[in-house]
């Protein structure tokens, strides 16, 4: 089963949950503009042979970026919503290096449009505290990433971010509740499971992928606590994206397998087996 199907279902669920239960300010017109613009741009730029399979294939790819934008971007201008979708897809087509697109499309689009206009903003606090909801995210997210074989980067990001936040709390002498509150962020988990896991914009082999996860968490920590940037993880991911290209050049052992998803999986799974019992266990589960 194509892991992107899971991703589309999960993201759609979050949108519906956000609007109905959490009262997110997601306008239907924005959602239509984002999805419409993403699909049109995708077809315009990528589609070569107009076969049914290729149409569905392109639509899935565009939908994932579009749904992330629907979920995260808030704006009162339809034009900005559509622009974000176009930026996301165009970046995927033209900002490429060594056969991969450089930036996570939706993260890149969010950084661009929030930088361009104060009418575009992110609303990271609206997920509220963890609770049942986050377990939902975790469950569905875990499923998605184990299918996509990118659980390592999520865990590397989350664990090292948690370690940094706990260390800061300890250094400041704060009660543990504060660090716990800071980690109970729906936005953080959403990022860890649905954004940083994009297989095209994380390093191909496992070791550099873990390093990448740790680096993104470190930059997120610095931006959030020392530069007071909200939604810092997205900025950190976009800033560090060029590293992925560099990692892929230096760790060549698997790069010949690029674009071959099946081979990929086998290649980095065998690496886990050698190094890490826990991840090997997870592989068995999946």
């Amino acid at each position, binding site marked *: 089963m194509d892991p992107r199907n899971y991703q589309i279902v999960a993201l759609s669920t979050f949108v519906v949950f956000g609007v109905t239960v959490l009262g997110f300010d997601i306008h239907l017109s924005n959602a239509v503009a984002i999805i419409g613009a993403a699909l049109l741009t995708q077809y315009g730029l990528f589609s070569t042979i107009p076969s049914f399979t290729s149409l569905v294939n392109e639509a899935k790819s565009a939908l994932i970026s579009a749904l992330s934008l629907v979920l995260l971007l808030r704006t009162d201008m339809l034009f900005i919503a559509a622009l974000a979708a176009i930026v996301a897809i165009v970046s995927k087509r033209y900002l490429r290096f060594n056969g991969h697109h450089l930036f996570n499309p939706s993260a890149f689009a969010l950084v661009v449009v929030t930088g361009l206009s104060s009418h575009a903003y992110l609303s990271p606090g609206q997920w509220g505290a963890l609770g049942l909801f986050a377990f939902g995210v975790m469950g569905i997210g875990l499923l998605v990433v184990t299918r996509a074989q990118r659980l390592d980067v999520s865990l590397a990001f989350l664990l090292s971010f948690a370690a940094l936040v706990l260390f800061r709390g300890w250094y400041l002498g704060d009660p543990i509740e504060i660090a716990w509150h800071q980690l109970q962020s729906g936005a953080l988990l959403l990022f860890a499971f649905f954004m940083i896991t994009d297989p095209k914009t994380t390093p191909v082999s496992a070791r550099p992928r873990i390093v990448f996860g740790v680096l993104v968490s470190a930059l997120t920590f610095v931006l959030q606590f020392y530069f*007071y940037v909200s939604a810092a993880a997205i900025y950190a991911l976009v800033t560090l994206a060029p590293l992925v290209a560099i990692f892929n050049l230096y760790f060549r052992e698997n790069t010949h397998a690029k674009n071959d998803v099946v081979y990929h999986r086998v290649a980095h799974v065998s690496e886990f087996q050698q190094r890490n019992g826990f991840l090997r266990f997870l592989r068995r589960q999946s």
Partner: protein
Amino acid sequence: MVRDKDRTVITMSNDFKGDVRDFAMVVPVPTFIEREQINVANQALVDHLDAYTAPRLVEYFDEDPCSRVRYERMMAESAVEDSVVQKAVTADEELGVTIEAKYTVGEYDILILSAEESGGLIDWLKINDYQLPEGAEQVVGSYLKQGMRFFVAKVNLESQLAGGFSDLRPLQIAFESPKFMLPIRLGTLNADGQQELFVYALTRTGRVETSNYRTVKMPSDVEIPGFVKNRFGEFYKDMFTVQTEKENGKAVFLEYAWDMAWCDPCAADPLTATQLRQLGAFWLDSETDAQQRNRPAAQNVFVTRLHVRYDQQHFPDDLKFIETGDRTNYQGRYIMRHAWKGESNCSAAKDYLNMVQERETRAGNLLASLTGWDRNDIAASMGVSALPAPQKWWKRIWQDVK
């Protein structure tokens, strides 16, 4: 609180009720504060802003169902209970404590303190007769390590007498820092349970919300029974309690978000450019009131009113804010419709009476669910014998068929 880019102007208003000699305020601030950055404001400014943004009660009087005369009346009432009592902390000496500056502004004596360690600062404050809540050392230490200083204000009795001020006027501080937050942790240490805090944010771009807690809109545009008019304060307070519980006590509530240029309906007149500038909206400095009157629209100030009931358990961390790009207007607006009481003997009157009865039942039920008030009490206050519970939707499907 005024915020634009990295610039912040905070106006702190308290409802301190005791002897002013016992009053002291300790506020962590992110930067050093010069004398020129401090000001004492007029309480009327804050009261005006409070009235302008208050939840409003709107009354509509039904027309005679047999004629077509109609009029509307509107009134607004402030439903504000106590605002924050910043129970305070007081100070006076040396123990690794640096008094970076000492000012007298209006009726206040102000110190800007920094310290190597929290212990020193705490001891210093204790020696100087400041009463510190339990656990203050940990919190003070955390703020110091985050590079914050302490702004400490006490009332200078001589200046107060000389100035003839009976109430404590709000203190204002202007500073530049990327931190957009309100330190509430010292406040949560006070043992007397939950505290109420109202934040009025004036910005250029749009609505303000918290980035580390959910910001939730209060229920608005709902129809409630007419008797609530005399108990509006109580109604609002109870509704706030119910809403807080619904969010597990962990949400900040949005009560008003509006462009300062106008209002509809107005609970109080919009503030003038001069008043807004006195509150800290520094970007308005190029305009005089006269100029503004000629061009009444677009003050370029967006006001957000947030209301939070907090304690340590539910709000462990300080309140952190973001300014959003959202300029959608929102207000807490509660509607009461008064039925036509006159004589009506036309055929339309019968339908009208049925409609009124249905409407009032609906309003009564809504009131019960919003406030948690007892249904029998509501029925009694509405002057009806009982308040029928809302009918299940399926009961109505085949009603007419049978």
